């Protein structure tokens, strides 16, 4: 991929622009997204430390939950969904 290549990723069904070398979080923040997930008590959370230690930016990426979007490079066509932890019920 060329430097400064622009492509699209999908966030909650919406198309979002991303640049090569950007993390998913960076692409989302650049497009105005702030809420990345909901806690079990339905509290909104988003990007915080930017260095992969707080796990606040975790989202479902290509079907895999708990992915740190600040540490994951955006790739063309990747599907990202807000992680809603209110539905992570114990025992199904």
């Amino acid at each position, binding site marked *: 991929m060329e430097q400064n290549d622009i492509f699209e990723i999908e966030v909650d069904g919406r198309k979002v622009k991303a640049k090569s070398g950007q993390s998913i979080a960076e692409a989302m923040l650049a497009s105005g997204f*702030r809420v990345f997930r909901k806690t079990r008590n339905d509290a909104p959370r988003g*990007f*915080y430390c*930017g260095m992969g230690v707080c796990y606040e930016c975790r989202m479902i990426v290509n079907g895999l939950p708990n992915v740190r979007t600040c540490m994951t490079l955006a790739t063309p066509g990747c599907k990202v969904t807000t992680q809603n932890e209110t539905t992570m019920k114990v025992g199904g």
Partner: protein
Amino acid sequence: MKEFDLAIIGAGPAGISAAIEAAGMGASVALIDENSIPGGKVFSHTHDHLQDTLPDKIEKRIGSPLLQRLESASSRISLFLESEVWNILDGWIVAVHRKGMSGEQVKSITARKLIISIGAFERIVPFPGWTLPGVFSVGGLNTLAKKGIIPGERILIAGSGPLQLVLAHHLINAGARIAGIVNAVSPRDVLARSAQLLLNVNGSVLKSGFSYLFSIRKQGIPTFFSHALSRVHGTTQVEKAEIVRVDRTGRPIRGTEKEIMADCIAYGYGLIPCCEITRLCGCDHIFDDQLGYWRPQLSEKMETSKPGVFVAGDCRLVKGYPAAIEEGKIAAIEACVQLGYTNRQTAESVLKASWSRLKRFKKFARAMELLSRPGPDLLDIISDDTEVCRCEEVTMKDIRSAVAQGAGDANDIKKRTRLGMGHCQGRFCGQVINELIWKLTGVPKEREVFTPRVPIKPVPFGVLSQE
């Protein structure tokens, strides 16, 4: 399994400097970093719009050549990027989790000596609303700003420490609108400590500092000394901030609250060394009263209490990148003496100059600490509804009731409330929990840390299950 003379964990200025030095002396070097490019936080990619600003010229003057030297030494330095260290066994076997899609699947790296150069992370004091989207760490927002990403129309910088200036500079150059800078230190203290800083800083850092200050004055950004963030309001994200005047110990002076319209907050009280890997290795740490945090105990040779384990850079004591580069060099040379690639005499002569430079950096570091350290009574800002443990949503009220039921120490609070049991394993809440308990019980006991356990960073079951 890959075997090397030296494994360096953290490819920031200290790590890169160490790698180049050691490789130059003939050692086989593994340089490990969890990011996708080397350079650490300070030499990370800078966007076009920031080119040609003075501080960045300076960073480039030092950063680019360093990265280039790393590039040219690539035949002798094995670079392991996107590799997160999750365990270290004696002897030294470093278990890495390779997150990238492509590249060889390396599971562990064996080395005779270790240099730990993982840098620092942000010091926090929780406050009401700090978990709202739109509240960023200063370092986190700085990285974004350097890439030209501005996640807000009115940015408030709060907390303390010289990093506020660096961030403000990058934001201004990216065209951001800064609503204000809020600093918990009093102007008198800032002046006094800055004087100390200036006396012990090298030319390039001095130039940068003045340049930052100048651009802030030029923009007419309101600055509030002796003030701290007391609350951030918003339903799904930051909508407005409330700041309050604080006295010299950090105690909020009720009745002096002011509102500031802001939709993005950068918040932090300076940097503290990342001790997780040194703790995992079993190194001794001391609580540095002036810093207000732990740091690994070191000999003059940058060696920790564990023979063969060295530390360099901000994860030893936060002093900025020029010092980190120097320390990386020292640690590498010392490691090479132990490895037999050079002798003590040669080492001494090379290191003499480095040692004297380091003396100045140490004073600089101390001044930075004094400029950053939050006053002990800043904890009074924490309201009952403040989530002290972000990960597990444990509020001050939960901690208070655990103490009322007899909990007297951090591990007891952890068991009762689940504080520290989330993804970050106590990296944030662990910074304040001891002091909070002492405030509630009135009994300052021995300071507790949460025992580092394998894995020190979350890794998938699949990775843990591999031979």
